[in-house]
């Protein structure tokens, strides 16, 4: 053969790689979130869309500002900042002043991610860090829920000046969880399923969230153990309570479809960075969240406990990982 040798590449094995890459995973999550997001915008109007944009803007700005100069394109390229802002936005009330939403995005990425050293290094779910910060900072604005309304009406509270209170001029309405907790009033299942209730802008529609989850599961981007573990535990725990006193405690169906349960179980708790690596650990993590959610919702001071449950289990994740190392092949056979 006279032909010159092609320039051969030397690289370590294995030579084959599966086709899934991290940006593709992130992109998949975007697609999975889209239906529930559109539903939220449909129910709560364009204002909800603005809140979402403000969150994403805050998140992306911080990510961009603190990324090392040469890595800027790459840092944004993986799409996690947008996802963080997006997820945060979905957990916010639709009439939240935009400056607060923006601040939430800044805190989510700044304190939730950047200071830890960027993607993959953080222990707590960044979006939830942002939300926990907002809830502790602006407790009233963060629990003022507007009823689903006209698509083109934008609540004027959105445009409150920075540092100032927003005045909500649309119809406010207690969220299903609040009604249950403080007044023991149930919300019809159909409304919970399609999302025609007040609440955070992205968590009202149970059906679309489940669809998104199924898509992620089908794409193998999602550890099915986490949602199954969380929802299963919550159902069992709430069923027990429901059987003890059906008037006082919410039933399992309400527990699953109300509030941030589905959004949290499908999109937040499953954040791979902040959930355990090992299968056994994943189960512990999921069951822990399920128990804590029902505990906080039923016995605690807040109507919604999903965020705190996930953050608490995030904190425990390193320990869970440490103590659930899988048995190495061929070791400790007698204990099997």
């Amino acid at each position, binding site marked *: 053969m006279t032909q010159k040798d092609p320039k051969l590449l030397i690289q370590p094995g294995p030579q084959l790689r599966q086709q899934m890459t991290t940006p593709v995973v992130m992109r998949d999550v975007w697609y999975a979130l889209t239906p529930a997001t559109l539903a939220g915008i449909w129910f709560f109007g364009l204002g909800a869309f603005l809140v979402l944009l403000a969150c994403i803007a805050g998140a992306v700005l911080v990510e961009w500002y603190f990324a090392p100069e040469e890595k800027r394109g790459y840092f944004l390229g993986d799409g996690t900042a947008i996802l963080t802002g997006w997820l945060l936005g979905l957990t916010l009330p639709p009439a939240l*002043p935009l400056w*607060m939403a923006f601040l939430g995005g800044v805190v989510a990425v700044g*304190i939730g991610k950047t200071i830890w050293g960027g993607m993959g290094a953080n222990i707590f779910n960044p979006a939830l860090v942002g939300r926990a*910060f907002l809830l*502790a*900072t*602006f*407790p009233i*604005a963060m629990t003022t829920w507007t009823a689903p309304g006209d698509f083109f009406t934008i609540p004027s509270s959105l445009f*409150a000046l920075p*540092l*100032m*209170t*927003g005045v909500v001029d649309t119809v406010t309405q207690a969220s299903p969880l609040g009604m249950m907790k403080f007044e023991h009033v149930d919300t019809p299942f159909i409304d919970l399923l399609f999302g025609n209730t007040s609440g955070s802008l992205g968590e009202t529609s149970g059906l679309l969230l489940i669809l998104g989850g199924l898509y992620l599961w089908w794409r193998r981007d999602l550890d099915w153990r986490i949602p199954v573990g969380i929802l299963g535990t919550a159902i069992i725990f709430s069923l027990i309570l429901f059987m003890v006193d059906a008037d006082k405690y919410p039933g399992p169906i309400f527990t699953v479809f109300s509030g941030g349960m589905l959004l949290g179980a499908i999109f937040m708790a499953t954040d791979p960075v902040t959930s355990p690596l090992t299968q056994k650990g994943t189960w512990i993590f999921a069951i822990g969240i399920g128990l804590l959610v029902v505990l906080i919702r039923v016995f605690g001071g807040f109507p919604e406990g999903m965020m705190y449950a996930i953050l608490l289990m995030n904190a425990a994740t390193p320990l869970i990982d440490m103590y659930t190392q899988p048995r190495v092949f061929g070791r400790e056979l007698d204990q099997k």
Partner: protein
Amino acid sequence: MAKEQLAYDEFMKGLWRENPVFVQVLGLCPLLAVTNSAINGLAMGLASFFVLLGSSILVSLFKSYIPKQVRISCFIIIIATFVTVVDYTLAAALPVIHKELGAFIPLIVANCLILGRMEAFASRNTLRMSVADAFGMGAGFLFALVSLGAVREILGVGELFGIALFGANFEPWVIMILPPGGFITLGVMLLYFNWLEEKKNKIDKQLATEDGVN
């Protein structure tokens, strides 16, 4: 003259260069617990300042009479005495502040800053230097308490020393007066001090190399 310079140096050291909070990170529990307003920070700072100064004077005066083996116990007794004095005085003179600070006044005893200064400085230096040191460290601690309290009060309530700053429509950042806000605010302030330090080091290095070139 030289002595003046030295004492001044000790003072500045405590206030800024080796600030007990921002640089040495000591005495955090009273610091974080009471700084939900600038006025509380001020009161706590003054109380600690007084205890530090008084104990420093006593320890430095009697240092040669206290055997090494029992010095820690003696220091603690001295500090506890001053703390009790502050506690009762505040309760009598400023009951409202005393109620706000609550159990954290007695806890000044457990402030590692004070015991640390006794052990590291007052028991080894002259009265004059010890007083300068106590003034510096006390002022540094006070400075930290008031600035932390001010930041938390401004954002948390929209006031400074009880004076409203932003008008009626201000949306308070409640977290700032809650425990997490304390942690995070101090963390961010430490970050700022680290950043200043790094910047200064960079400039120093630059100067050094320039000198070398010249």
